[in-house]
């Protein structure tokens, strides 16, 4: 069994190539994202509890199932008047984990999509707010609808979302960053990390969040940042062509 804490730089190079090998030739971004989470999960079965990939998709281009889930969330939170056709929705596009429902994005209706409708709405979700901030996208652009921030964040895949201990880490408002503390306690979640980056010539942004059941130092996570570009190499044409979901 491989442990993240024992992973060498040579191992990381092999993993990066494996990710690219397994994601290239996918018929949709969902296919590649699913392959990516599977590679991560299979490589570190002792560390990783759940690995997920999200991508920003304009509301009007969501697949029917994601749109239905997002509509439910919009109704529940009362942000309908702030939604536009081009409002980016951070949509779950790949998921692999220890529980069977975690291996099918369609069975994760509760996390199918998070509409980036207003900065206040996102700020109320500490993990997403921090993820966007630490990946260099921030929240300021959300209220203006200026998605060019994705272009400005290109090349800054050095951004890393990192929470060493999900059970104790709090944000500047003293809120738990990982708000789902029942999930954290039930599965003894420790380190949570996220990687992300924008796609060239598009306003799409890809982010991966990994929940671990072991505590991992930040320095051991940083080499994972390069994986995002490996997926992007494999999927940039798919994203440009709008081939996101596997129908």
């Amino acid at each position, binding site marked *: 069994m491989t442990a993240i804490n024992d992973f060498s730089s040579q191992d990381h190079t092999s993993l990066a190539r494996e990710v690219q090998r397994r994601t290239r030739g996918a018929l949709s971004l969902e296919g590649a994202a699913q392959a990516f989470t599977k590679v991560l999960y299979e490589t570190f079965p002792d560390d990783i509890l759940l690995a997920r990939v999200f991508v920003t998709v304009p509301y009007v281009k969501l697949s029917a199932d994601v749109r239905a889930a997002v509509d439910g969330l919009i109704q529940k939170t009362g942000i309908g008047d702030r939604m536009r056709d081009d409002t980016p929705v951070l949509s779950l596009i790949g998921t692999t984990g220890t529980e069977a429902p975690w291996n099918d994005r369609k069975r994760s209706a509760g996390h199918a999509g998070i509409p980036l409708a207003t900065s206040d709405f996102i700020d109320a979700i500490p993990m997403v707010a921090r993820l966007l901030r630490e990946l260099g996208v921030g929240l300021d652009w959300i209220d203006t609808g200026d998605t*060019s921030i994705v272009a400005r964040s*290109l090349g800054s895949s050095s951004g890393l979302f990192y929470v060493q201990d999900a059970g104790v880490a709090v944000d500047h408002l003293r809120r738990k960053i990982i708000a789902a503390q029942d999930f954290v306690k039930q599965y003894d979640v420790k380190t949570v990390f996220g990687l992300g980056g924008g796609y060239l010539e598009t306003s799409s942004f890809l982010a991966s969040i990994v929940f671990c059941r072991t505590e991992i130092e930040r320095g051991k996570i940083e080499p994972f940042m390069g994986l995002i570009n490996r997926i992007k190499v494999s999927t940039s044409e798919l994203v440009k062509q709008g081939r996101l979901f596997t129908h």
Partner: protein
Amino acid sequence: MPIDDLEQRLHRIVSALNAISAGEYVTAHTLEERDDLLGQVERSVNDVMMDLQTFDLSNREKNASLEAQQRAISEKLATIAQQGETLRVQEAELEAKLATIDRQRLAIRALTIPVLEVDDGIIALPIVGVVDSTRASDLTTTLLTYIATRGVRCVILDLTGVELIDTSTADHLLKVERAASLMGARCVLTGIGPDIAQTMVALGVDLSQLRTLSTMKEGLRDSRSFIRESSPREGERGR
């Protein structure tokens, strides 16, 4: 271990390596990786190709990011230039306003020193407000110009409208009187009320060198008398 399709696969490897060396690694076809010794070579060639593709993407992203930053900087420079132009326009407007204020100030200064020709050879200067060094200088200039150009012989400096006379004001008035005397005119100070007189005594203001009278009317009478007495009598003329 036998290697299947050796020649064909070697050709594909050579083509892939040629594509890589020509910098065409982005569009080059991935080699099929078989499970034999040559398969390991195919895998290594694919690894190199994938690494190069990733480096290429990183470079393109960095360039795009730099271009975006350059555009942002250009936009900021344009904004700064526009703000500079706006500031220049505002500065010009401000200068024009200051010039207007300066002209108005001069006009107001002229109005604060009215010169009344009350009789032949007699002028009265009703002074209002505070007499500071600037006003004293203006007063002296105006007065001397009148004396020189209009043949003035008597000057009535009326202080009825002066709020306060302190040692400094008294000094200024003495200088005015001295300058007028040098030009051959006689000065009379009028309009010193009881309040101002008391203040002057309390402050030790000394105007004893000046001829002082209580009202402008008395000042006018006194000046006429002076002119009459100092002028040659009718019968004496022509002798």
